[in-house]
């Protein structure tokens, strides 16, 4: 798990957008999980967003009308996965993040930390090669933020995936396996001690 720290406007989110096949780079090349995204057509980038990467967004970014279980099943529906298998997997992932008992609750019935746990489980639904995490603790108090980053580290290792977490909180970045800093769109030596 790699944490990317940097000031606002340093290019952290732009890097996530490009790495997540949401935006084409203005110059240079981009490879994710060994696949080139540089010249990928819109339809291919759409597939890659589902198959290759998993996103954990700021403030969880859940759909208000869906239950926790349905948030995860949605990913299976997008990928046209069999319904029964999708449900089993969704329930298993909710169990992993400690929310098996709250599978039928909607976002409005969950706390901020619980919503972010659902977001993490959702990002793992399509077995991504890379997890892209955008400021996952921006709406949480410090203890819950530590819990969420801890969960991310745990899931990264459990699922054997690469996780790139963007955060402005240097104390949380220290929980990652490696920390790098972004300044004016370029990577620079980390200003926080690596774990």
């Amino acid at each position: 798990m790699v944490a990317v720290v940097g000031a606002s406007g340093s290019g952290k989110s732009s890097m996530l957008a490009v790495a997540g096949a949401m935006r084409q780079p203005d110059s240079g090349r981009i490879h994710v999980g060994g696949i080139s995204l540089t010249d990928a057509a819109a339809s291919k980038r759409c597939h890659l967003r589902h198959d290759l990467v998993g996103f954990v967004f700021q403030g969880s970014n859940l759909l208000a009308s869906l239950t926790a279980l349905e948030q995860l099943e949605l990913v299976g529906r997008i990928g046209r996965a069999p319904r029964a298998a999708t449900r089993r997997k969704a329930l298993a992932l909710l169990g992993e993040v400690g929310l098996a008992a709250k599978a039928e609750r909607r976002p409005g019935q969950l706390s901020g930390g619980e919503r972010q746990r659902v977001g993490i489980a959702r990002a793992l639904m399509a077995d991504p090669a890379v997890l892209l995490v955008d400021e996952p603790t921006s709406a949480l108090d410090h203890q819950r933020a530590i819990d969420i980053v801890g969960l991310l580290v745990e899931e990264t290792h459990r699922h054997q995936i690469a996780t790139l977490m963007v955060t402005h909180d240097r104390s949380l970045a220290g929980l990652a396996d490696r920390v790098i800093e972004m300044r004016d769109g370029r990577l620079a030596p980390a200003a926080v001690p690596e774990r």
Partner: protein
Amino acid sequence: MFVGLRDLRHAWGRFALMGSVIALVAVLTVLLTGLSTGLVNSGISGLRAMPITDLAFQPKTNSTFSQSTLDAPTIAALGRQPGIDAEPLGLTFFNAQGATGTAVSIALVGIEPGGFMANSLVGGSHLGGTPAGVIVSRGVAADGVHVGDRVTLTRSGVALHVVGIAPTATYGHAAVVYAPISLWRQATYGQVTGGVLPPSAQGLASAAALQVRSGVNLSGVGKRLGVDIVTKQHAYAGSPGYSAETATMSLIIDFLYVIAALVVGAFFTVWTIQRQADIGLLTALGASNGLVLRDALGQVALVMVGATATGALVGSGVGTLIQGGTVPFALQADAIVTAAVILTVAGLAGSLVAVRRVAAVDPIIALGAAS
């Protein structure tokens, strides 16, 4: 429609409000359709029931019975044409008084007793059995006129003896009374002579009722004999007020379709704008534009079909209460279904403008969509 269905369930209040508006439009559409059908029936049901394919009128009379007169030789010449059967047909509007003094407006239709018109329109009733015998349609019977009664035409004073009742038939909003053509001539051309038929009116009729077999060159026949031959459907326009009424009703109903399209379009435009963050999230999770569009359109279709069906049912229920009263109103399943389908399609068309925006939502907004 995974998300669309759940949005409907979650935001049911908003969709119920929207659906209510569409349902009310559907109620109005059904009622206006019923009124339109009723007006059409009231205008031309008597003509529509005639067992004819075409009608011959005096030239340049716009298929209007009151303006057209054909003489006996012309009608006979029409009947001699290969593939054409022709009979005289008279139609005049009268005010009349029933036995109890009740005033009734009638369309007196003169037909040949024993001819193909009489056989079809009045069936086993004996038209022509007595010189003044007439058969009234149910509309006249509903005004309190019964078999055996005497109906007197105002002005001419010609008396009509009711000898039978025929199915409901109207023309120009007046109930039809079938009379032998000779009696019709006496009533029509004898109005100023106290019911005495002038010699010049012998053999006259308003038009000729035609049964034409396929392959006959009617325009050639018409030119040769100096008559305008039109199809029965084309002759509907000659009914007083028919064209204006149907055009007015069609215009109002068309406006309702446009209103439905605009209302649905406006609602889903706002709804789509409100959902932009959700749509961005869906595409960020890898949903294709096609999938998101199908989901959104499925949601619109469900709302439109549900609301329209509900409105059509309510409208039909209200229409059932209206039908049979003094208002010219007729519920016809095919007309209601057609109106409901057009309304649904209009709503879907209106929503397309809004739903099209779905495809333009950039997934990048999901990255900035902090809740």
